[in-house]
């Protein structure tokens, strides 16, 4: 049997992991908007904390994406 179909299937399933990162970034962004609405003068602090948190959250979904990319192009 040709393995390319199974590889594509595995890559698709692996890419489902990006869901978590997306939800996380959404929650972070929403909370940051709330915080800025409460305290507009603390905007720059909130923005830098938000970008750091997004970086932490984003990298988990990128791990899933890299598994998918490796499955397609390397295996």
């Amino acid at each position, binding site marked *: 049997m040709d393995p390319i179909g199974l590889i594509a299937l595995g890559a698709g399933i692996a890419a489902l992991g990006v869901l978590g990162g997306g939800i996380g970034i959404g929650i972070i962004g929403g909370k940051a908007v709330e915080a800025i609405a409460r305290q507009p003068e603390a905007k720059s602090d909130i923005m830098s904390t938000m970008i750091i948190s997004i970086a932490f959250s984003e990298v988990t979904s990128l791990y899933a994406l890299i598994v998918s990319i490796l499955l397609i*192009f390397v295996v």
Partner: protein
Amino acid sequence: MHINPPKVFEFTVSNQTYAVTMSIILQWIIMAVIIVLVLLLTRNLGKIPSKRQTVIEMIVNMFNNLVVENLGESFKKRFVPFIGTLGIFIAFMNLTGVIGFAPSTRDINVTATLAIISAIVINGTSIARNGLGRYLHSYLQPFALMLPMNIIEKFTVPLSLCLRLFINMLVGVVFMELIYMALGYFAFIIPILPSFFFDVFVALIQTYVFVMLTIVFTKTSVEE
């Protein structure tokens, strides 16, 4: 599709073959560009700033504020040169995607080196500030059984720094190649938007994140 950077030439020293890849050549070019830019831009600075000097002062002030706001005034003299160099170098490396070369930070060897440098600085600052005794004592915090966790943490910090930058840049490179592959001969105008996102926006955000995380980890390791 090639994920690894292309080999340019290789040389042999005592039966060991070293490959010089495109990412190293790009870094040499970037170093030369930065040195020339610094020499050209910092000539005849005056009390009354010209346009050129205003831009330089903005960049220097940005790094000054970043360090002073997060670490405190006492770190300014030692830390601003390191953070500034790191930031400018990574920014230049990430932005080479704009002129058509795949960024050298999509090579894991480059980001691993940067992360090791950061880890040495983070732990070295902690030793220099607190003394070796208190640094070693921090491994036993909050209690002695946490020793293995604390040792693992010392390795996961540079690992996550390295993987974050590497994966973000690699994903950008792979996505752009996929877009060009999908569009074929119709690859005009449409790739501008994703290219702007991956090559400029993500590149600058990741530079900021790398520099900021180095500062934050230094802060936590000094305070422990």
